């Protein structure tokens, strides 16, 4: 029978490799049987307490235990919502408001922190939950009821109105994605991952699920190491890491400092990257250092479950070239739509739209935003068929490969994250002492600029923003002005401000 639940991966592997390490960080090592046991204890408790088919917040720092808690939610027939206390406070508050969860699984070290947030949920401690009895019958009953379009998780993305949107993904989409991704990147039981992405982004699907599918091992790299290139490569070698799926900035952190002259990754053979432009100079340093490794560019919005397109590098690239995003994985189609709602001609720019099983279920408790981007396929007037409009513009190059051109609106890619400049502005404008502001992006230098008019100083503003925005959304340059330029119809003149920063 065809697989309908992501946990079937774990159940097959635990029989084969019970004692092998599944996930590890500096503090905790969990074998497949420990992941299996702990997650089923969590699931049993959720069921006994009467939680079912609803969001369960996992309020824990990055750890192997957090991953077992995720699976525990799925065992209980619920869906996990990762919240890491390193996320900014106002964002967490908005997420709680959107979810209004009845259940929170918390790390015992974070009880005090959690107590500072307003919620009506029942609080459960992870270390207590895993001591509970496993209720085989209840778990089997739930499995029998679950279908493959039931949700597994919600992850939150940036919203232009300043309110994050919760993307709801289901078993069927995740299974489809993991199968395609594994084939393209050639994962196996021998795969050793070093994870880089936080667990509250869907980027971590790349390590979490292939690990249980194949009986591979995933190391959760300490975040501090991404500051220190030699130490980071030492870490990869120490754990015999052979596969990494990282944001480009983590890779260039290593190559830009000529780290390869001192030390090279010894076991690494599979490198996937994405989410932003890879400077060719840096990319070529990687290829030179690891000539036998495969390099794959990945592209995909959270709304279509992980990644959607891939390009496995098969030719040389020179300065000024763009590495394509290639072609869609099997079982999904990319349609380039023109403004008139027609298919773009060969070489013509169009909006990247995606159809297929990969489409997530939409935004949680947000039918309006969902309807804006999950729309009827304009090329099909015969029966209901949804596509997701990414808001990204693309075109096909002379090789027939898809190439990313730019964003349609003010959304940018910065440090691997999708950011709405409007969301930064909304947050700045809510601060006392600010009369107006304008946020711009210097693509060449990869800097976010913030211009503002107001009574508070640049350093006060920086301090305030750190409370409100995640690190990657903080402007790199903040400039106070006496006045902002305006266009004839009274809007802030973004074009002239953009010129001003580019002339610097």
């Amino acid at each position, binding site marked *: 029978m065809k697989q309908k639940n992501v946990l079937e991966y774990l159940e097959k592997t635990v029989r084969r490799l019970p004692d092998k390490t599944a996930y590890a960080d500096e503090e905790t090592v969990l074998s497949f049987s420990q992941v299996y046991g702990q997650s089923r204890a969590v699931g049993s408790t959720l069921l006994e307490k009467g939680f079912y088919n609803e969001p369960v917040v996992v309020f824990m720092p990055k750890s192997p235990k957090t991953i077992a808690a995720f699976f525990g939610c799925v065992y209980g027939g619920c869906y996990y919502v990762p919240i890491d206390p390193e996320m900014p406070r106002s964002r967490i508050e908005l997420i709680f408001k959107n979810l209004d969860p009845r259940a929170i699984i918390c790390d015992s070290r974070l009880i005090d922190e959690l107590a500072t947030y307003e919620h009506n949920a029942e609080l459960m401690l992870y270390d207590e939950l895993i001591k509970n009895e496993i209720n085989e019958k209840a778990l089997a009953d739930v499995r029998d009821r679950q279908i493959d379009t039931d949700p597994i998780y919600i992850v939150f993305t940036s919203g232009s109105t300043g309110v994050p949107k919760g993307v709801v993904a289901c078993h069927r989409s995740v299974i489809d994605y993991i199968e395609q991704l594994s084939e393209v990147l050639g994962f196996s039981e021998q795969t050793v991952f070093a994870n880089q992405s936080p667990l509250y982004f869907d980027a971590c699907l790349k390590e979490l699920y292939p690990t249980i599918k194949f009986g591979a091992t995933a190391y959760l790299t300490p975040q501090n190491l*991404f*500051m*220190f290139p030699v130490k980071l490569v030492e870490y990869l070698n120490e754990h015999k890491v052979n596969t990494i799926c990282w944001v480009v*900035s983590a890779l260039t*952190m290593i190559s830009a*400092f000529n780290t390869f002259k001192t030390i090279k990754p010894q076991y690494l053979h599979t490198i996937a990257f994405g989410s932003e432009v890879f400077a060719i100079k840096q990319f070529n340093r990687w290829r030179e250092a690891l000539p036998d490794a495969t390099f794959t560019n990945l592209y995909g919005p959270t709304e279509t479950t992980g990644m959607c397109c891939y390009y496995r590098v098969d030719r040389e690239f020179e300065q000024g070239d763009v590495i394509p995003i290639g072609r869609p994985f099997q079982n999904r189609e990319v349609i380039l739509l023109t403004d008139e709602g027609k298919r773009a001609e060969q070489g013509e720019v169009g909006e990247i739209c995606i159809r297929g099983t990969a489409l997530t279920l939409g935004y949680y408790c947000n039918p309006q935003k969902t309807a804006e981007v999950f729309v009827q396929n304009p090329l099909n007037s015969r029966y209901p068929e949804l596509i997701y409009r990414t808001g990204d513009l693309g075109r096909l190059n002379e090789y027939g490969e898809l190439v990313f051109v730019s964003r349609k609106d003010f959304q940018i890619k910065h440090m691997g994250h999708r950011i709405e400049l409007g969301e930064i502005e909304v947050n700045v404008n809510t601060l006392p002492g600010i009369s107006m502001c304008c946020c711009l992006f210097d693509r060449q230098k990869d800097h976010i600029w913030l211009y503002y008019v107001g009574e508070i100083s640049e350093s006060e503003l*920086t*301090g305030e923003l*750190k409370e409100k925005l995640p690190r990657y959304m903080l402007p790199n340059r*903040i400039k106070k002005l006496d006045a902002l330029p305006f266009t004839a119809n009274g809007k802030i003149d973004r074009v002239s401000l953009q010129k001003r920063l580019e002339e610097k």
Partner: protein
Amino acid sequence: MEEILEILSEIHPDVDFENEEGLADRRIIDSLDIVTIVSEIADRLDVVIPAEEIIPENFNSVKALSELVRRLDEE
């Protein structure tokens, strides 16, 4: 020392760099900041910090960073 203090203050105007001794350990600066710091030091002071010197001990305080730059400059 002055110049380095200036570089750091431009990145984080709100941090009291003169009295902070755990910049890297307490994650006051992150990987993007390190990239910026190293490239600014190369641009303004003409000192290239090699990868093996990019370790927490050299980036925890303005003093440590200044000593590193002085040492590299003399070499």
